């Protein structure tokens, strides 16, 4: 291949551009990237702020729950829900309270509404992870739910409960979301 004058100019310009590119790239990393410029930092801040806010907002509910006062916890949750309806954390707490009260179908429904809004609750490492309790719920409820549905196919409530539990099982099993 023979290069003419124009080729040589272009090659020279390419070399200059490449050097400039490298120089600027080297300059920008890593020293010039301050923490606040980093998206992961922003995300971490938002995440921690959310954790803090949720803990504060729902503390009357969680305190009642921890003290075993499940009905009080439900009523306090209703109060928070007036201001923040549709919040995933509310659904998850409702699921947990109902689970503790032994209302397993209601618990599954609550967990599902929460997880659909935020998958964090089924993650192992999330600060609000309910993975363990959901795993126990599925383990306990799935066999009787399968039997009940087998015995009464026409009952939509049994079908819904079974599909809820299967959804939770699928989310526990992992895979792409």
């Amino acid at each position, binding site marked *: 291949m023979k290069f003419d004058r124009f080729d040589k100019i272009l090659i020279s310009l390419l070399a200059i551009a490449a050097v400039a590119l490298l120089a600027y790239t080297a300059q920008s990393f890593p020293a010039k990237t301050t923490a606040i410029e980093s998206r992961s930092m922003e995300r971490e801040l938002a995440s921690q702020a959310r954790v803090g806010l949720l803990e504060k907002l729902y503390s009357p509910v969680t305190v009642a729950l921890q003290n075993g006062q499940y009905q009080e916890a439900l009523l306090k949750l209703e109060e928070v829900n007036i201001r923040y309806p549709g919040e995933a954390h509310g659904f998850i707490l409702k699921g947990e309270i109902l689970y503790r009260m032994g209302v397993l179908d209601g618990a599954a429904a609550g967990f599902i509404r929460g997880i659909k809004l935020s998958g964090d609750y089924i993650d192992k490492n999330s600060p609000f992870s309910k993975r363990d309790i959901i795993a126990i719920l599925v383990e306990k409820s799935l066999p009787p739910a399968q039997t009940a549905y087998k015995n009464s196919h026409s009952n939509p409530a049994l079908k819904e409960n079974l599909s809820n539990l299967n*959804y939770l099982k699928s989310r526990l099993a992992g895979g792409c979301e």
Partner: protein
Amino acid sequence: MRLDRHMMTIILSGLLLGFFGVMLSVWGNPENSGICVSCFIENSAGALGLHNNPRLQYLRPELVGFVLGAFASALLRREFRSRGGSAPLFRFASGFFLIVGCAVFIGCPIKLFLRFTAGDLTSLAGVVGLIVGVWCGLKGLASGVELGRLSPSAAPRGSGLLAPAVFLMFLLFIFISPSFLIASEKGSSAQHAPLLISLAVGLLLGFIAQGSRFCITGSVRDILLMGRRAPLLWGGTAFLATALLVNFISGRFNPGFAGQPGSHQEYLWSFLGMVLVGWLSVLIGGCPFRQLVKSGEGDSDAALVVAGMFLGGALVQGWNLAATSAGVPIGGKIAIIAGFVLVFSGSILLRERE
């Protein structure tokens, strides 16, 4: 079966794809998603800031490996040729709808069989759908639906380098982590095999697949066309057998319909999603994995499909088209139908009539 060098390469491709497809899950990738091109593209689109789902953002090294491995192989084998220029916009749109089909099914054709070999029986609807889709595509080809021949003259010399260059840039991003690159700290994108292992596997598979031309829809196509004489039949069989075996050994084989990882029970839409993927793959000459490999060997048309796939990866998340364990959202169903509108109208318009 003649066990020549080409056949050996094909079988090796199947073996490696099956082995690493499961092992990457063992090493950290999401369950049944050791290799899933559509998932990787959704993840990578998110990492580049093209969508905002905080649980699906990670620049997957395997994806980079596929393209650069294929590029290296093509260079070594002297098969790198810049080519392209056949129905580029149709290919771009096809790339988009390939991802739509995969997102509604939850997985690309490779993951389809990885799910199947892990005992996920819901994937059967997708298996049938893929076969039907490939068959429809073949009928289309036989009836004269032709995107036009790839032409070296239509693609200026060197233009095929662009795709490997872009993926080389992504490789740099993986190592230098520029501030705009996002990485999920939760969700399925936070689950990944160690970076160097992912990259090495990607490079190896891209390298081998370039030489063997191995591809899932290609295997189905060849089996439908040639039956037992198809070399890809043996590659496909090696892939399935290895994946099944490794799933068994690693304790990942859990047969059943309900509660499978990353799956739903809307069988009709799983079926239709994979029909769309199979049909489009035949029309454009390969499944999403093959498109990546071809873009690494200088095929600008395949690179356009890849660009379309990235747009798809961004929009299936941004527009809530992707299915989840809860089922297929209405937007996903509409997008599948729109995909078929593209296939049907494209087939009518691109058909060569005597």
